[in-house]
């Protein structure tokens, strides 16, 4: 079976750091940055590249800041 690789792009300036996406990720990819964005929130960022492109994080994000891509190897 072809391996599916995903990728997420987070619009960090729109992120409000609510952390709702963190428990939604089945691969534990997302964590909170130690840096802050222009609004002063600790924004979400990917910690490693195990993403499978399931889009769970993007679906629960209240501010719709996550864009998801998926490709087969």
């Amino acid at each position: 079976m072809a391996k599916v690789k995903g990728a997420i792009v987070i619009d960090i300036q729109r992120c409000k750091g609510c952390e709702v996406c963190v428990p939604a990720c089945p691969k534990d990819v997302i964590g909170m940055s130690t840096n802050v964005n222009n609004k002063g929130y600790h924004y979400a960022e990917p910690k490693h590249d195990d993403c499978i492109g399931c889009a769970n994080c993007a679906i629960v994000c209240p501010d719709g800041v996550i864009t998801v891509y998926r490709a087969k190897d």
Partner: protein
Amino acid sequence: MAETIFDPNIIKDQNLVYKRTDHMKEKALSYCPGCGHGTAHRILMEVIEEMGIQEKTIGVSPVGCSVLAYDFMNVDMQGAAHGRAPALATAIKRLMPDKFVFTYQGDGDLAAIGTAETIHACNRGEHITIIFINNGIYGMTGGQMAPTTLPGMRSSTSPYGRDEATMGHPLRMTELVATLPGTCFVTRQAVHTPGNVRKAKRALRTAFELQTRKIGVSFVEIVSNCNSGWKMTPVKANTWMEENMFPYYPLGDIKVPEKID
């Protein structure tokens, strides 16, 4: 674009799985971090995008946190006086029966000041969709007790918890309108987990599709959080909602119309 830890070959338009719909305006949402309003707005706009009815949809925004919904949703919107959204939606739908008309209301708007308008619009069987966001509190004005506040739940006007003997019982609006013959589809959903968001989106799609059958009000309640009003972090508020709100406000379809082939 900033540097990414992912393979740049994946981040291409042909591999796109999910992107914020352009039926939401570019403006940043004014809601608190983690508020369910943002998710509810987005799935509503996704349904309108998938059905291709942006030009034919008219929304009515309430008074409450979502009073500025017309700043975020890229459809025609009308502001209503507090609680009067179903009355205004009735007028819009009767004047323009081919349009898709929805109201988007919170629990203070729909279940307190607008109870009469809501019940009578549902009883008349207007062919509109009512979206009811229930977070058990008056969020915008500072977390006061609402008719939907749970027994024993603390709010700024019930600091010792809601006492049912003096303050009454939480109002289950959705069960109430389900008993009326004018409603055709009544359901209760949530938007705090990916699975619930998908179910809530399907419910909204059904609600909008039923407007074309002209068989009455479709009523979708979304149990949501108010982490600022509940004084919790967003993730903790979602857990608290599962443990406390869902036993009193169980999720699922309460009334579904007969299927037609």
